[in-house]
């Protein structure tokens, strides 16, 4: 077996001759590393702006000549008249989204898994993830037909529900509903592939033992996809504050903006809209910091309950 030998050989030492030998590999990768540093790492370095007073006039100054203000930008953000409501909106829309989104994806995956008419199952599945590939602009345009005053739902029930024009948390549920309508089929795929990994022998054994369908789902299918559920849940809790500005902005309108404003949008509004770069960056940094903390907490809790941890 020369396997071990070739493995030992694989540890290539850094030297001029290996660099020359691998010049093609270097030429094929270094341009992209430079690209990566410019477009992904320089913005990370931009986090320093959160601790500085940066306005359009001072942006071009070298970093050490800008005024360091410590945590003043963060204090300013927390004291902002929009901050509290924005925070409530972000958490509200994302907790509802995670809860209903996860449950509906699992239920949909189980239903697909239980479907016996295979052709029909395939058709349903194909149709269900079509909206995933349609842009948010188009979804928003379609959603306005359905939910606007006098739209499809209003005419169907012959009442005016003001679904998209009531300035309350009703809009959270409308947004979550649209999001689930768009993504449920796609999100179910991952659970379905987890279900495909469950040993069919378990189902046969359960059937012989007289377990009915619901019992088989409860005692075999759900425990079988449990690790997948936990991992996805931890990840979505980590991203709880990262509610995308695109979706919120497109599904919003001036009447309900108070309840659709989320952190990323707020950061844009203050950072670019009001040209207070330092403040805008501080909001973004706050969002990331809380995100990492939430991820670690969720991970810890999963560990306490004896689940496989993500990290």
């Amino acid at each position, binding site marked *: 077996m020369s396997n071990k030998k070739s493995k030992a050989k694989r540890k290539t030492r850094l030297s001029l001759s290996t660099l020359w030998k691998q010049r*093609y590999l270097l030429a094929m990768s270094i341009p992209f590393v430079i690209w990566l540093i410019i477009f992904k790492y*320089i*913005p*990370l370095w*931009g986090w320093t702006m959160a601790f500085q007073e940066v306005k359009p006039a001072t942006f071009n100054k070298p970093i050490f000549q800008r005024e360091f203000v410590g945590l003043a930008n963060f204090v300013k953000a927390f004291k902002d008249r929009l901050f509290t409501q924005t925070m409530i909106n972000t958490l509200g829309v994302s907790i509802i989204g995670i809860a209903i989104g996860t449950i509906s994806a699992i239920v949909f995956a189980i*239903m697909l898994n239980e479907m016996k008419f295979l052709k029909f199952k395939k058709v349903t599945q194909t149709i269900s993830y079509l909206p995933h590939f349609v842009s948010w602009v188009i979804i928003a345009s379609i959603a306005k037909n359905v939910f606007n005053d006098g739209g499809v739902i209003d*005419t169907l029930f012959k009442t005016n529900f003001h679904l998209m024009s009531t300035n309350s948390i009703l809009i959270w549920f409308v947004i979550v509903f649209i999001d689930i309508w768009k993504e449920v089929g796609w999100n179910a795929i*991952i659970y379905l592939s987890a279900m495909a990994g469950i040993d069919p022998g378990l189902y046969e054994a359960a059937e012989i033992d007289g377990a009915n369908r619901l019992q088989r789902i409860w005692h075999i299918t759900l425990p079988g996809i449990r690790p997948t559920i936990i991992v996805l849940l931890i990840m979505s809790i980590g991203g709880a504050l990262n509610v995308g500005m695109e979706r919120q902005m497109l599904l919003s309108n001036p009447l309900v903006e108070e309840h659709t404003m989320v952190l990323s949008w707020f950061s844009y509004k203050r950072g*670019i809209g009001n040209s207070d770069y330092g403040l805008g960056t501080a909001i973004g940094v706050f969002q990331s910091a809380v995100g990492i903390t939430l991820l670690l907490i969720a991970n810890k809790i999963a560990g306490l309950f004896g689940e496989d941890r993500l990290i």
Partner: protein
Amino acid sequence: MRKKISAIDIILFLVFVIIIIITLYPFLNVLAISFNDATDTIKNINFIIPRMFTLSNYKYVFKDSNFVMPFVTSVSRTLVGTLIGVFTTSMLAYTLSRKDFVFHKPFTILFVITMYVGGGLIPEYLLIMRTLHLGNNFLVYIIPGMIWVYNMILVRSYIDGLPTALQEAARIDGANDFQIWYKIIMPLCTPVIATIALYYAVGQWNAFMDTYLYAQKLPTLQFKMYEIMNQATMKLDVHGSTNVTTAITPMSIRMAVTVVATLPIVIVYPFLQKYFIGGMTLGSVKD
């Protein structure tokens, strides 16, 4: 499992029929409105078969010079972005699949980190607009989002699964690493290349935020849609200055544009959906 059709199966079947209706109805509704007479639509928008068939909404859209350039921009960014994306992603993926590459580890780590932490909106905006001056430049659609690390990982995992004997044989025959990638690896990677090409193409065609943030003077079809959506009363400049008999409303125009912007996705979708899904399950297994 034995095929015994019980009551539960019938209920499931009905539930699925409802799900299909809920998913498709809004699309059919849009399609119907786009082919319906605009003044008639206002009366009641809840229909999926045009009541008064007309092509005037589309005629308006295709005549209006406001839509021609965005359409061209959308098509060009999709073509150029996909080509460059596929080329660069697969090339990089090959180098990172080579375990004997001196920088295999550090480069891989550098790329993977960016999947989890990012600079965020404001620093990226300032980099692109103030430092690199890419605002309203076509390059802003291509360069900053050139490589998706997730796609790169997909290709790399796929290459990892290929037999190494072919590469070694080519090397003995005197092929260099670029030739091995181009002549040996690429042809073998067709399925995963198709998958990432679709991801890039859909991403490019659907992109909206980059136009909104960086290039409002270089609008895409998606951005144009957004503009129409936010115009309560649209200025309708009537072409030819002659008597236009059919009225046109922003709503009907919006629906016609919605159809035009969705059509490419719906057309390629049934044929290529296995590739779409391919990436999803491949990504979940590896790494």
